[in-house]
């Protein structure tokens, strides 16, 4: 499942116009190409393209996280139909086929690194075959960040604007259309091989550019020590006062993976679907009996932070956050995860801050 790391020192040089050649070659080979496209004014999303003309560059990050290519917002699991004899005809939705290849150009390192967390959950004892099939058929070509947003904090959670985690190739774009490429896996090597006319090994001594600075803002290990001891603390009430429990942060989060399974049907036939869901929604944990283990916004805000920075690391040895900053940008009441975490770190260090967020 995981791409194996090949010689990470292997750098390739791509000529100007490589992007157009890549798209043409891939489309010619029947590969689906997903690349950054402007879908709303000033908004860039990863979408299927037909020609390289549609691609936009120079964006900070895409609006929806990469996870949706592997874990869609809504997907059909199976379809069922009542038969006249009382039987039910059931058909499972076909899985993505590895033969229908997909290449994603222009994913950001944080979105790709998030897949490491998702892989752990979707392969925990049970292999989520839909997720796995899509992962297998997809090659991830990341574009290194040149201008991180002020809200980015990848370096605080072990990431980097030039991170290669889970990437197949990391591309450093130059302003003149050329690019430097770093192969990170067998799939990446195959991608480079397909582009051999426009991508050649870089001259000896070529160095990849230094990443732009993203100052680390907090220490997750320190934070965990406070989380370990403070399940009950007024802090959670204070921090959740302005939270409206809307779910925008979770839906845009590259590592959030909570989902719902629902049936949608009429008298005759229907579908069973898997949909994104959010632990901030009040009904998320509500039992049919009416009992709700997380009855207020405070317990739900606590769950979100505990899950990402304590429970997930305890079960999977990884923080369920890549520092992309979408939660900060999306929150319409100005809730800032970084501020909350730095507040916690201050407390962990024995300091005191005001009881505000």
């Amino acid at each position, binding site marked *: 499942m995981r791409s194996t790391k090949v010689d990470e020192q292997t750098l390739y040089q791509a000529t100007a116009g490589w992007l157009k050649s890549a798209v043409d070659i891939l489309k010619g080979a029947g590969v689906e190409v997903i690349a950054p496209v402007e879908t709303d004014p000033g908004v860039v999303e990863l979408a299927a393209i037909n020609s390289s003309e549609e691609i936009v560059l120079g964006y900070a990050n895409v609006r929806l996280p990469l996870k949706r290519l592997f874990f869609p917002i809504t997907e059909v699991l199976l379809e069922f139909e009542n038969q006249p004899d009382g039987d039910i005809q059931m058909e499972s939705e076909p899985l993505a086929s590895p033969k229908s290849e997909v290449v994603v150009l222009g994913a950001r390192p944080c979105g790709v690194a998030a897949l490491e967390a998702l892989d752990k959950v979707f392969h925990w004892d049970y292999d989520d075959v839909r997720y796995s099939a899509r992962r297998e058929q997809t090659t991830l070509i990341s574009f290194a960040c040149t201008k991180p947003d002020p809200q980015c904090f990848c370096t605080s959670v072990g990431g980097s604007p030039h991170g290669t985690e889970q990437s197949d190739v990391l591309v450093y774009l130059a302003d003149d259309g050329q690019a430097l490429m770093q192969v990170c896996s067998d799939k990446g090597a195959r991608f480079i091989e397909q582009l051999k006319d426009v991508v050649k090994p870089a001259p000896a001594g070529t160095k990849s550019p230094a990443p732009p600075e993203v100052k680390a803002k907090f220490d997750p290990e320190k934070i965990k020590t406070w989380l370990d001891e403070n399940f009950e603390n007024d802090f959670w009430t204070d921090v959740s*006062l302005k939270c409206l429990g809307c779910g*925008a942060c979770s*839906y845009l989060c590259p590592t959030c993976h909570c989902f719902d399974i629902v049936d*949608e049907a009429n008298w005759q036939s229907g579908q069973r679907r898997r949909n994104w869901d959010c632990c901030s929604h009040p*009904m998320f944990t509500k039992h049919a009996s009416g009992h709700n283990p997380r009855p207020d916004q405070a317990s739900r805000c606590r769950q979100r932070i505990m899950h990402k920075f304590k429970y997930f690391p305890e079960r999977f040895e990884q923080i369920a956050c890549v520092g992309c900053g979408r939660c900060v940008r*999306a929150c319409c009441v100005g809730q*800032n995860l970084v501020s909350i975490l730095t507040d916690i770190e201050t407390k962990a260090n024995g300091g005191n801050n005001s009881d*505000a967020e």
Partner: protein
Amino acid sequence: MSANSTLTESLQRAASELLSDLNVAVVIGYGRDGESPFSHPEFVRKPEDVERLVFDDRCFGNLAVYLSKDAIRRMGKIGIVVKGCDLRAVNVLLREHVVKRENIVLIGVPCTGQGDPLPHKCSVCEQRNPQGCDIVVGDPVEQPQINAEQKYSDAANIDAKSIEERWEFWSGQLSKCIRCYACRNVCPLCYCKRCIIEKTIPQWIETSAHLRGNIAWNVARAFHLTGRCVGCGECERACPMDIPLSAINQKMAQLMDEWFDFHSGLSSDEKAPFTTFSLDDSDTGIL
């Protein structure tokens, strides 16, 4: 473009007095920390903390949304900073008996608009000087005359399209909906303890983010807000997918204007068309 310092000072003083006299348990206003590009809801419970309050041109949120939250109502009497649009929402909450007038202290602030460029809702605002507040901080500002054409221009632009174009437009926009329900949660008037989307017997509206489910959700929400929505535009601002939600609500408001000469939220004892019965009604179908 920066915080209006005299206004902020008056606001802080008013809040401090309210809290010191033990008149209110909490003042809900706006605050700003160094990093944030806009001012966000702030809850001040002690007089010494009023310095956290500001009022500037980045005070986007509609604070009335907190008046229906149990965690805040439990605190006691609430002082709330309201711009004109926020006050309209409070009026609807009052007429729908969600809040009791004696449990809130309204701190009105005159507002010439939030954000730069000014969003449409601010450029057509007719409530720049909030009326009926317990305290008003700051001097009144000029109130330009607004006509219906300006008010409903977003809806008119879409109405000008052919029906096929309109369908294409809305299908495209609503396909983007990811069903995060930020629009609902940020709306002061979406206070149902159990929203229609959460009802399962039967499941009135499908929860999956396919086009038919998205249309059903957004249309149902618009219908449930018809005659109630005050046009504060928070739904559109909260939507992470840049869907022009205000246009839908604006259209419903235009119809309420044309059919019933009704504008929601102008006073707390207005008679709303859908919740008022009169023997003079043109349609007496229910009799």
